[in-house]
């Protein structure tokens, strides 16, 4: 299975033009840049934190896919999810730039490996558990920032990103053989 390399060259290449997802997210959102400067600065800050999460998620899946621990069809799913996170990254970068901000950069893969303790991953279950924990954290992070955005369009974007992460978390949880949440409203609380 070919794993898309998150090379710096290809990463930089994505910043020059908007991906289809970014275009869709930003369609008709020309008013984004018309908010007050204080609100815009705050929103850009939140978006950059989100972008940092997406950089990390892309690299986490890269580490998992490159570990040799994932078997098909799980490997295919992981690569698919990595693709989602790349689309999120592109959309966030485009939005930050549209607001006049500077997107936060990606770290080296080794930096993510150290921060995520990739050397402790010994099995497919370990990789899936790490991915599930990151996805759950991202769900709650995106849900948590929705009320903080000064711009409703950005709040909606955060909701859509949270929905994608929830899809990922649900699939990963199922792959791990773990039960569904016992109660309702288990996310974002």
């Amino acid at each position, binding site marked *: 299975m070919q794993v898309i390399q998150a090379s710096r060259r290809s990463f930089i290449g994505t910043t020059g033009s908007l991906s289809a997802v970014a275009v869709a997210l930003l369609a008709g959102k020309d008013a984004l840049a018309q908010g007050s400067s204080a609100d815009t600065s705050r929103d850009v*800050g939140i978006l*950059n934190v989100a972008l940092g*999460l997406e950089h990390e998620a892309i690299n986490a899946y890269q580490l998992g896919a490159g570990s040799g621990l994932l078997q098909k069809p799980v490997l295919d799913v992981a690569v698919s999810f990595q693709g989602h996170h790349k689309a999120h990254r592109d959309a966030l970068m485009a939005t930050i730039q549209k607001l006049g901000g500077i997107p936060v950069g990606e770290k080296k893969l080794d930096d993510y490996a150290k921060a995520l303790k990739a050397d402790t991953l010994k099995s497919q279950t370990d990789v899936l558990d790490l991915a599930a924990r*990151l996805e*759950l*954290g991202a769900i709650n*992070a995106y849900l*948590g920032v929705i009320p903080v955005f000064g711009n409703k369009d950005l709040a909606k974007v955060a909701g859509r990103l949270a929905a994608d992460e929830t899809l990922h978390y649900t699939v990963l949880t199922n792959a791990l053989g773990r039960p569904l949440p016992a109660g309702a409203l288990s996310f974002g609380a």
Partner: protein
Amino acid sequence: MKLWRLAGAWLLGGLAAAPLQAQTPGRVWVTPPAGDAARGKLLYESRCVACHSVDEHRTGPAHRGVVGRRAGSAAGYGYSRELAASRLRWTSQTLNAWLADPEELIPGQRMGFQVDDATDRADLISWLATLR
């Protein structure tokens, strides 16, 4: 569970009496009740780990030793200018205010997440206090 709560209360008992910040005169600081550190650990794992971990800087700074530490001072992490210049020290009181509304406490900082529920904040702070 009780041991966690007792440990948290013991650790925070001394911290609550720590001197507060001279640059925030007139602010009424709220001391949270002793929380349930075990529940705080679970909350941490579901809400905080997107950005933070105990021992490694990620999107946010590492948390070991955060209680008692001066804000914006963990070596190797790139803080916002506003947080680094805040001169706050993390106590149960300042963490309670920070988690409730980071931007209200330090305008211009970068954390967009907040913890609305007072019990959740108390439990999280109790957990953070165990990270020595």
